[in-house]
């Protein structure tokens, strides 16, 4: 039983490390590991519909898809084209961010073109996510005044649904939706999109549903009919669109919440593009990073001796867990993210150094190995906690502010630059508070009562080596 208690934590840590190693094993090993050895290719992980094959890397490290879009400015366009283009970019950015693709790059090219670079999306998905105007319209069966209000499709079967508010005729479009559309499932488990009206939308919808009760109405996205439900009751505040696939429903939610594009876009070109930092540069930096970490390990072992070995092992476990999390969540790793990761490694090392310095003090003060482990940890804990919590607070603030929000009078405030950094750093620090500390403790405890625990000279340089029995030190 005591043996179980002794070895169980270590076994669990080892299992966790192996599992993480399996998860993160690269699918193209020669990009990350020394060449010349026939490394097996990683398969990633797949549980049901949850699949992660590769780490998600940003444009700077891996490249992605580039779309060149042309904004179609109508002949009779009134207003400032520059403003309309800026608005278009904003909507595109919202769509990209909401669909979970981090670190996209959007800029104007020439007079009327936009160029978008997206990491980790196939050209088809990028095209369907960004290429659509996403103008949502509510339509009713065409009647006598169809020509006045406008038809919804070419068949002439549907006309734009309208209502009268304060003596004005208002067409019911996506403009009247709150930007909180969501994916929902009906009783049969079929996906759909739920939405709520704002401003006068509810009133118009009430008028439409009350005069069309028992008849069909239709909902169009651009020129495509999404659904044509029969009106069962008068509704004024909310509605839903059914008959969609799950993927389509998710995409529609993103598009509805980001709003319709002010200008229609045509995809001029799409192509795969390589890493912006240059493949060669990325490879060399990966190699250099590995050498750097090796040097750190060497330094730790030379300076701290036995605990340095333990810390190196703990650090390996820490790195494995962090990268596995980056892959599973998934976090889009960019150079900024890697910077954050390097910082979090530094902080994980620091936690170990703090603990070891305390342990040394305890050992010098004549405590036993086991006692000095516990004292070392409990005394180092407050500073580890305070410094890491302050880092987590910074991450939280940067992440929340980076996400963007509307300020009264000042417009939209967002700083997407720092979000990826903040998120990656937060994951790293959170993991380090568990792993670097807990794993080190488990590993150190493994040696309680063994020969090593009496070799104080392996911990404190100036301590006398054994024959001198326990307690011979000052």
């Amino acid at each position: 039983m005591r043996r179980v208690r002794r070895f169980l934590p270590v076994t669990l840590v080892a299992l966790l490390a192996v599992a993480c190693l399996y998860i993160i094993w690269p699918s193209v090993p020669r990009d990350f590991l020394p060449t010349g050895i026939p490394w097996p290719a990683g398969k990633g992980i797949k549980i049901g519909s949850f699949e992660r094959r590769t780490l998600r890397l940003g444009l700077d490290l891996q490249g992605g898809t580039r779309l060149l879009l042309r904004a179609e400015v109508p002949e009779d366009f009134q207003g400032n084209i520059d403003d309309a283009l800026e608005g278009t970019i904003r909507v595109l950015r919202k769509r990209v961010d909401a669909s979970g693709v981090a670190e996209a790059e959007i800029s104007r090219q020439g007079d009327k073109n936009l160029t978008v670079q997206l990491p980790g999306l196939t050209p088809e998905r990028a095209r369907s996510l960004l290429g659509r105007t996403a103008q949502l319209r509510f339509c009713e069966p065409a009647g006598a005044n169809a020509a006045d209000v406008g038809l919804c499709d070419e068949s002439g079967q549907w006309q734009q649904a309208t209502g009268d508010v304060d003596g004005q005729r208002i067409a019911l479009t996506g403009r009247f939706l709150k930007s909180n559309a969501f994916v929902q499932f009906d009783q049969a488990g079929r996906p759909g999109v739920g939405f709520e009206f704002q401003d006068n939308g509810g009133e118009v919808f009430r008028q439409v549903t009350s005069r069309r009760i028992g008849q069909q109405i239709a909902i169009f996205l651009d020129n495509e009919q999404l659904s044509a439900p029969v009106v069962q009751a008068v509704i004024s505040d909310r509605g839903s669109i059914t008959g969609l696939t799950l993927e389509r429903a998710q995409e529609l939610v993103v598009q509805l919440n980001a709003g319709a594009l002010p200008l229609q876009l045509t995809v001029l070109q799409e192509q795969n593009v390589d890493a912006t930092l240059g493949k060669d540069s990325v490879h060399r930096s990966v190699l250099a990073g590995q050498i750097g970490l090796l040097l750190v390990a060497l330094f730790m072992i030379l300076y701290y001796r036995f605990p340095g070995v333990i810390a190196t092992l703990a650090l390996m476990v820490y790195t494995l867990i962090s990268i596995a999390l980056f892959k599973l969540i998934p976090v889009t790793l960019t150079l900024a993210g890697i910077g954050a990761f390097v910082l979090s490694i530094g902080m994980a090392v620091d936690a170990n150094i703090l603990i070891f310095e305390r342990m040394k003090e305890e050992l010098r003060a004549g405590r036993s190995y086991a006692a000095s482990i516990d004292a070392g940890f409990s005394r180092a804990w407050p500073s580890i906690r305070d410094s890491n919590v302050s880092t987590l607070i910074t991450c939280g603030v940067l992440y929340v502010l980076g996400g963007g929000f509307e300020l009264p009078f000042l417009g939209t405030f967002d700083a997407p630059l720092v979000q990826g950094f903040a998120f990656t750093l937060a994951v790293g620090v959170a993991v380090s508070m568990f792993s670097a500390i807990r794993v080190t403790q488990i590993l150190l405890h493994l040696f309680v009562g063994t020969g090593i625990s009496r070799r104080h000279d392996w911990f404190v340089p100036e301590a006398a080596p054994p024959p001198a029995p326990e307690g011979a030190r000052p």
Partner: protein
Amino acid sequence: MTLDLVGTRKWSFLFSGITALVAVVVLAIPPMFRPGIEFTAGSTALIRFTEPVTAERLQAAYADLGHGEARIQQTSGSEFLIRTRELQVPPGSFTEPAAPITAGQVPTGPAPVEVVGTLQAGSAGATGTIDLVDLDRTAGCKLGTQKLGTAAAGARVDVAEVIANCDGAAVYRVVTSDASGYVAAKDIRDFQAKPKEAAPEPDRGERTVIEKGLRERLGTFEVREFSSVSATVSRVTVRNTAIAVAVATLFIMVYIAFAFASLPRPMRYGACAVVALLHDVVITLGMFSLFSKLFHVEVNLMFVTGLLTVIGFSVHDTIVVYDRIRENVRQSPQAPFASNVNAALVQTIARSINTSTTVLLTVATMLLLGGTTIASFLLVIFVGVAAGTYSSIGIASQLLVAWEEGDLERLAFWRRTPAEQPAG
């Protein structure tokens, strides 16, 4: 005998003060920074080379032409998307991108084509007519079997395209008055390439300069797209980032005050940590401004990230030292504050230096061995971490002592009370 670090505080203040002042002066001299291409409008070109070219060679060629900032992305084969800073070109120098592509579109004749040369149909001595067939470009390159037209053997016909290596041999696209189709090399003779017209190239300012330079270094190419692009990161975004960081700093100040609430005057800890943080940021910025001026180092997105890393590190380092002060003050509340702080500094100095060493070790290795594109990022971290380590020892904690001992007042009333007792 322990090290008296607190006693040296006036020297560290003097040193930091001068360094920070120099940094501010350097920053004040325009240009403060050289903004990277993310922050400025630029020019973008999509270029396809005839011969295989690597991204590294292209990058080197651009650097040679004075555009070390060029961001090069390979798109396919030897086609590259290149973004540089804005090139000075006369109006009308832009090449509009090609028309929309449609999936599965395969070029077929007849279509208005540019004649690249002429040939005689049929191999030597052939008679009758030679079939012009289709070409299957979807599956690699393979001559088809569909007959699109014929050409009389021996007749001289125009050639619209030469596909150098198709199924092991050259294939020619032949255009006659009524048909267009492909013919294999074995079925032709006497191909004569049309001499390239030495049409005077229009002067397109810097675009022409670069294109000429590239052609000399890397061979012929086709410019498929050339236009101006806006900044990918707007100035508003950068400003907002700075605001976000400032707000985060305020939160840190409050948290530190909260964490040290058990000590007298906890707000001071937060304030001094922030002063040390500002010190690190100003020195890092100043150093970079100097690099900008001397070596044309640019401030890019990675610089922003690096600065965030430095900020994180600086606060972390300071808190570790503060924590030790807290412990010492609790243990011996009767001892003078200065001696408690000094003990804390002595106890943590090994740890501070070791932690920094590990980070600097990694960064230095990457700086020396890694790719050049991330050098500025690493440089920021290197300078910032070094400054952060120094300031956690020489500034953050020492300021607490100076505040406690009333150094500032003493400085102000220097003349009136010259015989003030030195700090215990």
